[in-house]
């Protein structure tokens, strides 16, 4: 690369370092330079790496935190894609090393680096094959961060898949008794989803044609460096295909979108692609009925990996839907809004009831994730709803903002909950809810922190879980009152299972279960992990604008763009669904009727 590139793309090295530093350290660790026996050294190296990556991402996300603002730092409040890095990778397929962050991905990147650091610190109780564990852990971090920052669909897919193998081994080697089953189940579900995603990617790629975009759009979506390059594209004789997510979104939102024009078996490609991508992403979220890998994986995984799974991996699904499904296939989103919302509400209710029924503490927390991620789906789904509000994007924006907040809040609270369960498990080696009780008396500091985290998960006002849920529920009202009512009632179920769990575990007179004499107070390391999580759960509950400052501008702009798209391309949508596969028209009918009265 030339110095000029470094100047025009100041984020090249910082972003690259954030993504690839863990992988680099993993590669170095895997060499026989450091003997296996130096376990402490390996642990500290891994922890230091995650800490450096966290500080780097925080420096990037929080301009002015460490002195004057640099060119490679994020501008809060700017809705568009920032700090874009673009290098050619495979020219014959127009595949680029294209990275960037905006208000949606930046907070998720920081969440990932933060939780990775905490999870790495939480890995101290791991005693088996330390070196392999940390190598895989760092590779996993690279995969997760890569997904959040890549703007090239091919690159995105590569990172998406890179996460699978480390996760498989992390669950399969360091997990609980049924680890092998859980590991292969996780792998299988995700791979099925990603194969469908690959098919959708290829379909979109070969249908896309950059020549349909104006030179301004090409430059704005980073498909061309400057006007000259853009002209070269528009004057090409052959179709110019692209993997660029921003350019694909521009194409998808054209009035004569190529994805809407192409059709397979009478249904337009944008609906097919939306569906295939959605399946790929909701498996990760996960929603009922493809959630069954989650309780197994979460329960069998070691504590730090459960934290990562719940805190970050589930968000990848929601992020994918928000970043890819809707902008690129808005028509599909419009036609299938009922599906997304319906899946959300079903997961919400099912997850809550399932959590109520659990005897295993960790399994209960796992099902609570299913329930909480249901809110995310509902919030994203109401987005497409237009109803009688005359294309008013306010409710959509509210729903999506709520979903984004819910994702971030759940990242802190669920990681916290899994950690709290892990602390207990490390001491008494069981997780049976029926055999706990009286922990408050034995470990007061731990119990108060744990109760705070569980309250955050419950969605108590003043804690981070509340904001997202309330925004989503409110926004759903204008889409379908029934769904809104159901989601509001789910809060009661949530309260029931969490309060019941708190009662059974922390309250009560005394601990009667096995290994009672091992209930020692929290160690300093454990406190250092738990305290920041509790602090942030409270902080974001009291001052949600700290996150909304990042999220809202980007979400609002995306929503407004799509509202304008709906108004232009489907002006008659509430009356006469234009994309109209008969089934979807029939299914949206009740929702519409409700919204109109």
């Amino acid at each position, binding site marked *: 690369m030339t110095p000029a590139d470094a100047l025009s793309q100041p984020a090249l090295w910082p972003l690259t370092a954030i993504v690839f530093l863990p992988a680099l350290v993993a590669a170095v660790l895997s060499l026989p330079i450091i003997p296996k026996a130096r376990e402490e050294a390996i642990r500290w190296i891994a922890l230091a790496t995650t800490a450096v990556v966290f500080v780097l991402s925080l420096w990037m996300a929080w301009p002015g935190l460490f002195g004057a603002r640099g060119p490679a730092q994020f501008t809060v409040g700017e809705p568009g894609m920032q700090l874009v890095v673009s290098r050619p990778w495979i020219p014959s397929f127009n595949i680029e090393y294209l990275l960037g962050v905006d208000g949606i991905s930046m907070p998720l990147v920081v969440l990932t680096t933060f939780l990775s650091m905490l999870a790495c610190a939480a890995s101290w109780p791991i005693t088996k094959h330390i070196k392999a564990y940390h190598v895989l852990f760092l590779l996993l971090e690279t995969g997760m961060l890569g997904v959040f920052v890549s703007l090239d669909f091919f690159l995105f*897919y590569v990172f998406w898949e890179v996460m699978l*193998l480390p996760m498989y081994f992390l669950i*399969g080697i360091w997990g609980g008794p049924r680890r092998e089953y859980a590991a292969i189940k996780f792998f299988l579900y995700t*791979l099925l989803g990603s194969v469908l995603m690959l*098919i959708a990617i*290829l379909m979109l*790629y070969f249908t896309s044609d950059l020549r349909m975009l104006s030179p301004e759009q090409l430059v704005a979506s980073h498909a061309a460096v400057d006007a000259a390059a853009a002209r070269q594209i528009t004057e090409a004789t052959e179709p110019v295909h692209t993997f660029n997510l921003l350019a694909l979104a521009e194409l998808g939102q054209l009035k004569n979108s190529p994805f809407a024009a192409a059709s397979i078996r009478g249904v337009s490609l944008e609906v097919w692609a939306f569906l295939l991508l959605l399946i790929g992403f909701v498996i990760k979220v996960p929603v009922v009925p493809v959630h069954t890998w989650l309780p197994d994986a979460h329960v069998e995984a070691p504590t730090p990996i459960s934290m990562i799974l719940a805190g970050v991996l589930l968000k990848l699904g929601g992020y994918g839907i928000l970043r890819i499904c809707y902008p690129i296939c808005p028509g599909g989103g419009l036609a299938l809004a009922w599906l997304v919302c319906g899946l959300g509400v079903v997961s919400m209710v099912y997850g809550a009831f399932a959590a109520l029924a659990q005897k295993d503490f960790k399994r209960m927390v796992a099902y609570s994730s299913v329930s909480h991620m249901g809110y995310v789906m509902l919030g994203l789904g109401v987005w497409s709803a237009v109803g009688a509000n005359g294309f008013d994007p306010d409710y959509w924006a509210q729903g999506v903002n709520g979903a984004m907040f819910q994702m971030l809040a759940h990242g802190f609270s669920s990681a916290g909950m899994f950690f709290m369960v892990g602390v207990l498990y490390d001491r008494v080696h069981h997780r049976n809810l029926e055999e706990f009780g009286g922990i408050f008396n034995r470990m007061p500091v731990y119990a108060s922190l744990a109760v705070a985290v569980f309250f955050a998960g419950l969605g108590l006002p003043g804690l981070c879980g509340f904001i997202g849920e309330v925004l989503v529920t409110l926004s759903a009202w204008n889409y379908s009152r029934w769904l809104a009512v159901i989601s509001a009632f789910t809060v009661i179920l949530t309260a029931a299972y969490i309060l019941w769990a708190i009662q059974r575990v922390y309250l009560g007179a005394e601990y009667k279960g096995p290994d009672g004499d091992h209930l020692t107070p929290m160690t300093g390391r454990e406190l250092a992990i738990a305290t920041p999580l509790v602090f942030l759960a409270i902080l974001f509950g009291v001052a949600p604008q700290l996150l909304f400052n990042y999220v809202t501008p980007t979400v609002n702009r995306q929503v407004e763009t799509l509202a304008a798209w709906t108004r232009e391309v489907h002006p008659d949508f509430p009356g006469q669904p234009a994309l109209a596969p008969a089934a979807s028209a029939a299914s949206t009918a009740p929702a519409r009727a409700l919204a109109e009265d």
Partner: protein
Amino acid sequence: MDLGTLVSGTLTDTIDVSVPLFRTELAIAASVVIVLLCRMLPVLRWLDSGVVALGGAAFALAYAWADFQAAGSVRQELFGGLLVFDSLTASIRVLLAGFLVLYLMFTRISGIPDREDAADFSALVLGATLGMCLMASANHLLMVFMAVEMASVPSYALAGFLKGRKASSEAALKYAVYGAGAAGIMLYGISLLGGVTGSFHLPTMAVEIGRIVAAGGDGKVLVLVLGGLMLAVGLAFKLSAVPFHFWCPDVFEGAAAEVGAFLSVASKAAAVALTLRIVFGLGTLPAGVVDADAAAGLADARHFMVYLVGGMAAITCTLGNLAAYGQTNMKRLLAYSTVAHAGYLMMGVAAATALAGVHPANARQAVSALTFYLATYLFMNLAAFAIVAVLRNRLRSEEIAAYAGLVRTSPGMVVAAAVVLVSLIGLPPLAGFIAKFLVFSSLVQAITLTSERPLMLVLLVIGGINTVISLFYYLRVLKVMTFDPPAEDHYVEPPSAVSLAGWYITAVAVPVVVFGILWSGLYDFAQMAGTFAS
């Protein structure tokens, strides 16, 4: 034309045109002769036949590479139209010769064959490779038959190379009987096709087939279909496509892992190239011929071929993957994996055929995808069999169960195995993913551009589902290596820290990673291979 001009014309054609483009094969042939002489003449006893073979292979590779660079979009018929030199010939030769070099090194490291048998082994391998080079360049049905036989007969002997072992002899016999049957059927098909069209020269036949199909009516089309099906049997045998794959697992299990590597990589590459030769040769009009009738007839012929190849691909892929699931022997598992990969490759062939003649530029991409696939497959399978061979030498077993807990004793080997097996599943960032991605790309192109849409859609979905199925059995091997505790009573020779075999496996596994990330260069190579299609 008098005899004099005929002779001088033939001489000019042979000496000035054909032989210079045939030097790769000549180099291989010469090394076969020298290797055999080494064994016979006491004067040459001091020569190490392995080194001679390796030298010959290196020469062949150098020539193949030089020819490849000069190939461009040249299409030159050699020896009066029996062979053709074009970008496909040139690139497959590079692959074969390159494989030969790596393979001969591998056999020297792994210790099968021993020094006593090395000369025979090398001669057989070189001879078979010669046949495979001819398969890639055949332009005449007689040559097709000869090349297939030339590649097969040494392979039968290789399969039985472990002379003392019953399983090995049985494998050889089974292979030979199957091979003879398939060859007979293929020869019958060839005679039918030749009889109807009046020629064995592929381009001439294509024009004639086009006209016959366009005219329709009489029984000639039926005979063509019958001939085509019989020809397909011979090809399917070489490709180990279902339902002509039965020899494959038995031969792989019975023969040494070294032989498995040769059959799975070189034989497959040649078979795919030959299939491309035939579908493109018989399915498209030769350049310069303008004949609307024949073109319309050939479109029908291609339609037939697409369904034949595509249908077989779907069955091959699915059956291979399902059958691999139950295997307990590593070589048998790899045999079924080979069958499954033949299925993916045939999907690519079907897509290329569908695009041929309609969208030449896209057909070219489809052929490039196949070449890329073959190139990555070379490294993946060579590494896989090398691992099997090294572990066999150490553990004295090829059962998957014997690999239990291997990660404790030789983590490096397990990492290499993980790279190879995950690449065979087709997960990024490994080369196997790119190969699959490219083949699926050509299927999608065939969906968007051609009238074969329904079949291509089905193939795409089947290919995707198969990827998920294949996850099970490849991961099971990794699971045994990593998760399972080592067997208590099993004696394991402690691995030496730095071994030649270790370095070799590293050397073949590293490209699997590198071509998964930086695949631009390899794709450019593959694109050159596709030039002939456009």
